[in-house]
């Protein structure tokens, strides 16, 4: 599965499982947060990544991290 910010490109090249991130230079981070909150955000990204890996897909599919879960 793919964690990235440029979702349109990921879909265009056919990446099957995509979890959107918050910025190009920090796919598994968010420097605007405190270190603790950033690590919690990273955990949510990875939890969503695991859900994507366990899901059957037939085409490029975006697995958003639920909005209410965002730090």
């Amino acid at each position, binding site marked *: *599965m*793919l*964690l*990235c*910010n*440029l979702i349109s490109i*990921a879909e*265009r*090249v*056919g*990446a*099957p*499982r995509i979890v959107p*991130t918050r*910025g*190009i*230079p*920090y*796919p*598994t*981070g968010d*420097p605007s947060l405190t*270190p603790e909150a*950033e*690590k919690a955000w*990273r*955990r949510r*990204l*990875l*939890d969503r*990544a*695991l859900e994507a*890996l*366990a*899901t*059957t*897909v*037939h*085409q*490029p599919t975006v697995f958003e991290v639920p909005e209410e879960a965002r730090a």
Partner: protein
Amino acid sequence: MANIVHYINQFFAGVGGEDSAGSGPTLVMGPVGPGRRLAELLGPEHEIVATVWCGDDVASGIVPAIIDLIRSVDVDGGVGSDVDGGVGGGVDLVAAGPAFTSGRYGLACARVAAAAHDAGWLAVASMHEDNPGLDEAGATPVVASGEVARRMAPSLDRLAGAVTKLLRHEPLTAADGRIGKLARLTVMADARAAERAVDLALVRLAGDHTATEIPLPRFDQVTPAAPVEDLTTAMVALVTEGGLVPDDNPGALESARATRWLRYPIGNLDALMAGEWRSIHGGFSTAYANDDPHRILPLDVGRQLVADGAVGSLFAEYFVTTGNGTSVANARRFGIEWAADLRHSGARAAILTAT
């Protein structure tokens, strides 16, 4: 009449296979192997005055020696050629290949053509668009060949057409089978942009949904892998194109246009310390990544997932390349190699971070 030098490898020169792949460059007067058919196709207007062949293992590393051999070709006593722009003893054009999808041969053809171009000759190479050597040709024209040598005949037809056109000093276009980097030229269009935009809109409305002035690269269809049935027992790998490497970049990973990928052990680490790791990616500011490498490679949370039982284990190494200007052909190769390696190592899933 134009004078052409043809570059081929040891196999197509009829010298041998891998046993001869270490042979240095050799000059033979006249056409050899596929050059004979190429000469027929070119007709009496043009002549393959010489063939230079070299072994696949060494050719791409000794291109200057190959160029020196071409320079040594002395046509008509070295009095020069009948075609404008000819230099170097009357040679007008250097043609290389077809190299099909052969990596070493394609790399050599691309580099020989590029160096010949730099030396002032017209030059063209022939290879399949998936050949990893393609990008090495730079702005020197490359025309598509078939995938394998079985497609020699149509590949030579296209190469001959390209040679003929170049010798008329006409640019090669996609219609000629040109692949790889296309030089962008300023030309006078026959209508202003607004008119062309309306024309294109009308063409599209009439049912041609692919008409365009700017063809975009084509990408593969990817067949999604089946889901992982039980992640709690699965080994999961962390991989990245974010250019994250040990601080001194011991493998000299490129910051752009990567030609390789690297692997580093993380099996004994619970976290990646700032100052010990660095992103050398040239496509974005790496300050955030260097302040906390987990922003590129989430090892800290990966360990959490294992401790919490969410995944069985983490693969003891991570794979890394730089996805900045990297050719699709190289990226495809990295992906194939990563998948094969991880499958062999027992990993069931990979989490790829991309910048």
